[in-house]
């Protein structure tokens, strides 16, 4: 994070304007550092050219884990570790194991996935986030441009590009 010290913030009022501006800005070859919005804007990730998230895969794997764990647990406990005659049924009848298998699958897959999500997004209690502009959680969309990364262009140039693309205001923000 060392080099990212100073940023140029473009503040947008409206998500549609934002989406257009992103196209324009990127077409000029300026590298957009990140966009912050108070709510999910559809098409934002495509506009920024982000790849699809791989969380679904994680969810699936965790799900499979749940299924096999549950089945193993039940077969081992009721069928192998201490078999008992219950209601004249076999020691481990599969049909009666289905409900729990399902529940365990859901439980482990959802918890696994959410945990992964929190980890990859580095979300945690007492996390000290780097807030560019607090209005970005209220009603403003904030596009940040890293001055270090885009050092070929001057600050004025960048702010002009943002302004033209429709930013309502331009702010310079330095972290130290």
């Amino acid at each position, binding site marked *: 994070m060392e080099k990212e010290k100073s940023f140029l913030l473009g503040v947008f009022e409206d998500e549609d304007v934002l989406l257009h501006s992103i196209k324009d800005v990127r077409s000029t070859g300026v590298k957009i550092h990140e966009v912050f919005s108070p709510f999910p804007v559809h098409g934002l990730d495509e506009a920024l050219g982000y790849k699809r998230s791989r969380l679904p895969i994680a969810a699936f794997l965790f799900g499979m884990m749940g299924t096999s764990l549950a089945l193993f647990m039940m077969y081992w406990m009721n069928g192998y570790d201490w078999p*008992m*005659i*219950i*209601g*004249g*049924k*076999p020691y481990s*009848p599969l*049909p009666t194991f289905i409900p729990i298998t399902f529940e365990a699958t859901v439980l482990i897959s959802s918890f696994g996935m959410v945990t992964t999500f929190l980890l990859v997004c580095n979300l945690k209690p007492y996390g000290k986030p780097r807030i560019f502009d607090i209005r970005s959680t209220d009603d403003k969309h904030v596009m940040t441009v890293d001055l270090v990364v885009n050092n070929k262009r001057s600050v004025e140039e960048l702010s002009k590009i943002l302004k033209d693309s429709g930013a309502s205001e331009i702010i310079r923000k330095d972290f130290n």
Partner: protein
Amino acid sequence: MSDNNKKYWKGLEQLSNDTEFIKNADREFSEFLPIDESGNTSGETGRRDFLKFMGFGIAAASLAACEAPVKKAIPYLNKPEEIDPSVANFYASTYTDGGEYCSILVKTREGRPIKIEGNALSGITKGGTSARVQASVLSLYDKERLQGPLANKNKTSWDALDQKILAELQNISSRGGQIRIVSNTIISPSTKNAIAAFASKYPGTQLVQYDPNSSYALIEANRLSFGSAVVPSFDFGKANTVVSFGADFLGTWISEIEYNKQYSKTRKLGPNKKEMSRHYHFESILSLTGSNADYRTPIKPSQEGLVVAQLYNLLSAKAGRTSISTAKTEVKYLTEAANDLWNSRGKSLVVSGSKDVSVQILINAINDLLGNYGSTIDITNPSFQKQGSDLAMFNLIKEASAGQVNAVIFYNCNPVYDHPKGKDLEASLSKVSLKISTSPRLDETANIVNYVAPDHHYLESWNDAEPKRGFYSLGQPAISPLFKTRQTQESLLRWSGNAESYYDFVRNFWKTNLFPKQSTHTDFDIFWDRSLHDGVFEVPSVAGTQPSFGGDLAYAANSINKNYKPASPEIELVLYEKVGIGTGSQANNPWLQEFPDPISKATWDNYFAVSKSLSDKLDVKQGDLLKVTVKGKEPVTLPVLVQPGAQKETISVAIGYGRTSAGKVANNVGANVYPWAVVDSNGTISFNITEGISAEKVSGSRPLAQTQTHETFMGRESIIQETILSKYKQNPQSGRYFPQISTSEGKKRPEDLTMWNVHKYNNHHWMMAIDLNSCTGCSACVISCQAENNIPVVGREEVLRRREMHWLRIDRYYSSDADLKDDATFKELEIASENPQIVFQPMLCQQCNNAPCETVCPVNATTHSTEGLNQMAYNRCIGTRYCANNCPYKVRRFNWFKYHDNKQFSDVNISMNDQLGKMVLNPDVTVRSRGVMEKCSFCVQRIQEGKLTAKKEGRRPIDGEIVTACASACPSDAIVFGDINDPESAVFKLLETEVAERAYNVIGEINTRPNIYYLTKIRNKEEAKA
């Protein structure tokens, strides 16, 4: 009887009969146990205390399972040779309560009697028991028994008491004063001897025997008819036709256990026995016996005499004898009865519970007419179980109130409470200077005497009995006396200046009188030990010809015409004795108070049982309060019970309730109706009140704590399967119901439809067969189960909430008129017939092999054993009650509260709430804690014990060695238990054939595969007409 295989020798010396042993035979163990707190170094006291501590210790230990700390566990210092910890000893003994008799085996653990079993060696009770016999063991540990002698209500010592009494007696007899010993029937020859000894010392002494529910009329009738004032011995086993006029011989009449045995023999059916007796019953109330009858006719008490006379006339017509002239009365089935009786002459029996001498004379005449004397009735070998003379007691009261009696000794009787003239007696006693009671508790009579010399409980005493001529029975103590009580016979000996112990006295009596009667043993000691071991000694009955009938029929006819009317619209009243509470002598026994009456299923109360029509007329519902007034007597207010089968205009109410001084349990439960009994000019007591009765509804109600509130079985054939004899003969499967389930491949038997292949039970597989035809509903099994399995008593309030804990219940179903209709609605099926057929169905855990309860338990607390048992692990149970909900038989019981060591229940559940009561607990069975489920375990503790014994001897258990408590208690052998994998076992032999004939599972269609089979109920009657 598993107990037959057990050895009762009190050790080797008994066999080798060494002198030291004989000297100590009356003691629990012959060597001295150096435990001593009272500073008294005689073996006696030390051992007694020791035994008490032992009892407490084990009781506490048995409670450890419910997280109670183990208290007062005293280790053996040196082990008495016939007591092995955790191994039960059985002592043959004798239960007597007045004339009530049962030969028993007492099961003791570490010196504590904990269970009564029947003694199969007895020729009378043949191993059968009754509810009252089973419950008697709890009375031993009743802390409300007197703990020592009283002089004018103050504690005193025996020596002091003896001095005082001796002084007074001498003084009285020196003045030639009159002394009366009042008692219920005494069937103990030695006791009679002791009394004789007393009488010889004090010449003015007379023995007055009376019975709360006497057979005086029967005795009188026999005196007038045959010149011998006795109760003959009846043999229902020989009778093909039984006709009873209100004699409840399976419930409360004279010797019910004996009769149950005989009767059930004639009701058994099987591939090789397709005949059964036919039983007609004419009565005013619905009695246990009546509910077993094939034909039952309700008659009014005021008709009874005429109906009997009618029967006599019908028979005399057949016999071509002169009939007697009495008003004609037609009642249903009387003609049929006459025909059947005539056709089975000599193999029939007519009995009557009537307390009217002339009626009994007619009964004798009828039996004489039928030639039953010598076959079903034996008067030369009479029964001694009812000797009470109403007249004697009547005279006593007269003399006493006339001040002609100077001393009265009440020997274990309570006339102030249980005699109709109790109040007069109480008043007259003020004129008697010396009043002594030997009652073991401070009862209504003991309350008003000068001296109380409390007797032992019978389990603490030596005694003998002769219930029937030639049938002798020996009673030995199974525990040293718990309190400072003294056996009455011993008291009498003391007071007659005889220092001999009663043990020696009995022994000498047997030596002089019984030893000569036999020839097997030449040495008395061996004979004595033999008798002690067997508990009984029986001499062949005297053949002798029966005396010929010489009754005065004209006299009888006259008095009958005078006292009975063919029909009257008047309300009449009948007092009767209940199977559980009896005459009230054991009223303070909570097991009996919570014992569901076999017919009404009511507990904890007596009540006015009235017919539906009468209840409508009086505008009362079940539980409403009814005030009944008998002319010239105190009115009584009790709740109403609507009783199907009761005679239309007859109210019936049970004696034995309304005790005022019996103890916490019994006091003020119900009302005392003895005073209502009619006493005529020559003292004869009658329980039928036919005049001056008025009944009116009073405000308020008292719900009756019934364990079953629904009366019919709703025509559900998969629960009750019954048929009639004629059909059974044609097709043994008659009455069976075969449910079928439609599938894609047509109809299938439920047992053929299963997802799983069933588990095999290869080693043992315990099964039970219950014959609905033999079961008379006497409910001895219920109490036996309660005693064996430490089942708590929960009290009236909880029973009202339908929370009784009995593991085994007897379901009683009335037939409904709608049963015969095909298009009967459910509402119609719910209504019992006016005079219903009754079926009793013992219902306990069915030990299903496909148990619904097991499947649903979340924690595996109830699982199936490899021997087919449905097991309950109390300590694993978390109490979701799902198993109970899912039990189709509703036999699971939940511990709603903590029933042990809990003030809330200490008054009723005495066997778990005080140190003394806890001595009755069976140490082999856990006392359940609150919040867990419990249920019948097929007496798994007995199964395990049996298997262990067999294992130690390196063999398989023998059939009969392992028996459940219910099966062993049953007086009619309706319950057969055993290992179906053992081809020698009775249950195997029975089911082998019956599975194809009468045996069925209850609710077979849900395919729970129970381990209990029921055999269809078969009635010996003609096709019922709708």
